[in-house]
């Protein structure tokens, strides 16, 4: 099936998310849609899938014009989509999820669960998915959940499959499996639209590449284009992929975490007896696939987790059990994972957000009274220093772009004297320019002698920043390794393989993406 987009335009108010986009996906081709966060990739796909209606332009399937008013219309013409955030009901079984919306029934609407099970098994066997139709989805690992999503699309006879950032939640090894699956689908004649901002993957799998920037198609580079060519096309200027940093000047232990265990509200042990330390002047990166306890670990250090046991010492003083406020006062800075929920108050101004943690102490307050003039003046300085594009301090925080919001959070945390900084996913969802900026500030903070703890799910970021890497898997520490450890080793550790075995295995084999990127794959 051939999918064509002609002049698709989608506006949200004054913002043009998609500007006259043309795109052609041939039968049995893997078409990579490359672009930064916020470039308009997901909007475009939601238009194709009928979740959004375009303001202008047309969609053609095999040369015939179609209109998709809702996902059901899109599925009817053979378009399937695997969303970045899985559209699976967590408490349902695999079979129930797969049949939802396309149920086979008998009698007065009774569900034919057996038929659904059979379909799941059939597809699962054909592509080697190893999915049990009776498993409850919430108990499955993320990689398997993704395969359930793919089965869902295939059951509905999808000839064009849209994969929206499918690798964001996967380990490098799971990514390899996904790429293998995509190859098989392609061999069966399915067209795939693969959305990503990871250059390695594009080079590993793409038959054709379309790059989108600020809602416009900016190029259709050849699949042999180099990573830096793709990057500069995506960002619109030349980018340095590595961050410059000096060797660390490591001092004494600042943060010492011993036997940290955290239990979540579902009674699951999410952090299991974790011990490590962070020294003055070094960056310790916590690597791992999302949802392996990193978030809870940082929250426990900050005093945000109710059911945390163990010990967190800051220069020998116990922090665990103290209030968040006293942890902050003790000199710990915190960049939370979700800036919009935990990092900022969206309806407050930038100036107010910049003093959220110090609004009640001099110089910003005197007794019970705020001193708005001081807050405003200080905001002006911060905005200049951290290059926050906010107009003025009186701008509401929620109106800023993601990158500028994150700069507000970082400016706030770094503008008081810190002994330690905890930054969870500091660059998630940011554009390349902002990422560079945040990285530079973090390294500068390290060089000032602060102990820096970073949580990141992006291996690139871990490799760029870390002096040491702690890999977490299912709430436990797999190992702590030097910052220059090979990506393959880190990838295997992220899947729970102990460091020595990971190093051994990585020596023997290279992961698929890596191998392909250097042109060593012989099977094509």
């Amino acid at each position: 099936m051939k999918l064509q987009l002609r002049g698709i335009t989608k506006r949200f108010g004054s913002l043009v998310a998609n500007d006259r986009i043309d795109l052609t996906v041939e039968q049995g081709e893997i078409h990579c849609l490359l672009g930064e966060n916020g470039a308009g990739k997901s909007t475009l796909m939601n238009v194709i899938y009928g979740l959004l209606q375009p303001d202008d332009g047309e969609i053609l399937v095999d040369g015939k014009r179609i209109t998709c008013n809702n996902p059901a219309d899109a599925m009817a013409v053979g378009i399937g989509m695997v969303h970045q955030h899985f559209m699976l009901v967590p408490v349902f079984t695999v079979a129930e999820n797969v049949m939802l919306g396309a149920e086979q029934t008998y009698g007065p609407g009774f569900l034919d669960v057996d038929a659904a099970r059979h379909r799941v098994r059939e597809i699962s066997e054909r592509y080697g998915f190893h999915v049990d139709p009776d498993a409850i989805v919430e108990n499955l690992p993320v990689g398997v959940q993704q395969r359930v999503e793919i089965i869902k699309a295939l059951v509905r006879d999808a000839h064009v499959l849209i994969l929206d950032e499918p690798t964001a939640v996967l380990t490098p090894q799971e990514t390899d499996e996904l790429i293998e699956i995509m190859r098989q689908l392609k061999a069966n004649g399915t067209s795939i639209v693969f959305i990503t901002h990871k250059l390695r993957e594009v080079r590993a799998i793409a038959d054709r590449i379309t790059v989108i920037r600020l809602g416009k198609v900016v190029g259709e580079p050849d699949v042999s284009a180099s990573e830096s060519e793709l990057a500069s096309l995506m960002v619109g200027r030349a980018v340095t992929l590595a961050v410059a940093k000096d060797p660390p000047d490591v001092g004494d232990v600042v943060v010492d975490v011993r036997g940290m265990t955290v239990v979540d509200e579902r009674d699951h042990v999410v952090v299991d007896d974790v011990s490590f330390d962070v020294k003055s002047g070094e960056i310790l990166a916590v690597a791992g696939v999302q949802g392996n306890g990193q978030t809870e670990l940082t929250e426990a250090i900050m005093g945000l987790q109710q059911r945390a046991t163990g010990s967190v010492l800051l220069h020998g003083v116990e922090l665990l059990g103290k209030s968040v406020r006293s942890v902050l006062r003790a000199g710990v800075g915190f960049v939370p994972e979700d800036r919009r929920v935990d990092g900022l108050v969206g309806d407050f101004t930038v100036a107010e957000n910049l003093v959220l943690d110090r609004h009640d102490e001099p110089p910003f307050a005197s007794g019970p009274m705020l001193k708005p003039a001081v807050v405003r003046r200080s905001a002006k300085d911060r905005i200049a220093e951290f290059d926050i594009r906010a107009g003025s301090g009186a701008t509401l925080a929620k109106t800023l772009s993601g990158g500028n919001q994150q700069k507000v959070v970082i400016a706030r945390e770094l503008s008081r004297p810190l002994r330690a900084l905890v930054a969870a996913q500091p660059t998630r969802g940011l554009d390349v320019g902002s990422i560079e900026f945040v990285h530079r500030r973090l390294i500068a903070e390290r060089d000032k002698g602060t102990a820096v703890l970073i949580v990141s799910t992006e291996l690139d970021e871990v490799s760029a920043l870390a002096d040491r890497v702690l890999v977490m898997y299912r709430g436990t520490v797999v190992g702590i390794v030097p910052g220059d450890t090979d990506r393959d080793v880190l990838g295997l550790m992220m899947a729970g393989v102990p460091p020595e075995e990971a190093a051994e295995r990585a020596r023997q084999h290279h992961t698929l993406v890596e191998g392909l990127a250097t042109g060593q794959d012989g099977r094509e």
Partner: protein
Amino acid sequence: MRTELATRPAESADAQPAVALTRHWRTPIMFGLFGLLALVVFGILPDGGRASTFGLSLTDDAIQLAPISVPSKLAATLLALVCLGIAAYAAWQTYLGRRVPLWLSITFGVAFVLSFLTWAVAGSEISLTSALQGTLALSVPLIFGALCGMMGERTGVINIAIEGQLLAGAFLSGVAASLVGNVWVGLIAAPLAGLAVAWVLAVFTVRYFVNQIIVGVVLNVLVIGVTNFLYSRLLSPLKDTWNSPGRFPRLKIPVLSEIPVIGPVLFHQTIIVYIMYVVVVLAHIALFRTRWGLRVRAVGEHPEAADTAGIGVNTVRFRNVLLGGALAGLGGAYFTLGAVGLFSPEMTAGAGFIALAAMIMGRWTPIGAVFAALLFGFANNLQSVLGIIGSPIPSEFMLMAPYLLTIFAVAGLVGRIRPPAFNGQPYIKS
């Protein structure tokens, strides 16, 4: 070779359970405390030498069973020991890291209640059959109300207006039956009244995304106000035309109604109760075995997933709120046409809120809600039964029992409760 390497870690990930479970001691501790309470208060403290008598048949039953008489102190003590035994077993299960099974909780409840009854009726006699009859009578509106709440909440719409829908059903069924002079007309009018209230709720919450709790509370107040007004202007002064609906006769089902003890309770009832049996069974099957049920549950658990699977989330919600309203309206008819035979102001007396608790305690399943409603009905009925025989407990305290039970239920003291994930959250497409 490469793929072989790649698949291994993921397979090992499938094999092991994700995380360890911590043990929950709440249930065994609750059992233990209540067991001790039973042992001391019902078993050890009272004087011995008295007997508790339980009647098993009504005078007009075909099969007459002799009343059972037991020595109060001994029987209450033994039952309390059973409770403690169950507590110990629950503790053992918890220690092994297992969940306390539902049947164990039910057995505990029955043993505790029997121990309490044996103590409370010491030296006199109550009829079990009529106690159960009273229980069912008080449970019927609760069950309809709980089903109503469930229809909404399974799709993610919290319905606080059950009380108003019950009351509207009671009112309109009474008025319609009086005006036409036919109870069947009242039975048809009742669901329409509930539907009308539900329609307002659905329009405001599902279409315009107004806060569900606020709309629900306002509707309750509105229905109480309107019915009270009409009662004082029409139903009370013109009683003969407006408020004399009559009642449905009780129908005996042959054979079944002659089963000892439960026969006359379950199968000598009005048509509304028989409709309820059918509705409960149908609702349970429909919710868990049909396409409709799968979609309803998906909408409450993950509306976006339902939407992307081509299901109209807000359509499903709208319809289900209406369906729930109709059920609650039908339940309201039980007050006027099934029980009392006329409408009186605020006659639902908070049943809609207890129904909400029954739904929660029954974990959003029809069958579970039935058992929870029966428990509330039993506690409620008990105070009148014990008031008659002059039991040792002040009747004011017994009046509190159903509400205490409700608090326990809603506070989650009877096991972990997990509502539909998107309960109460409007679905707004961007």
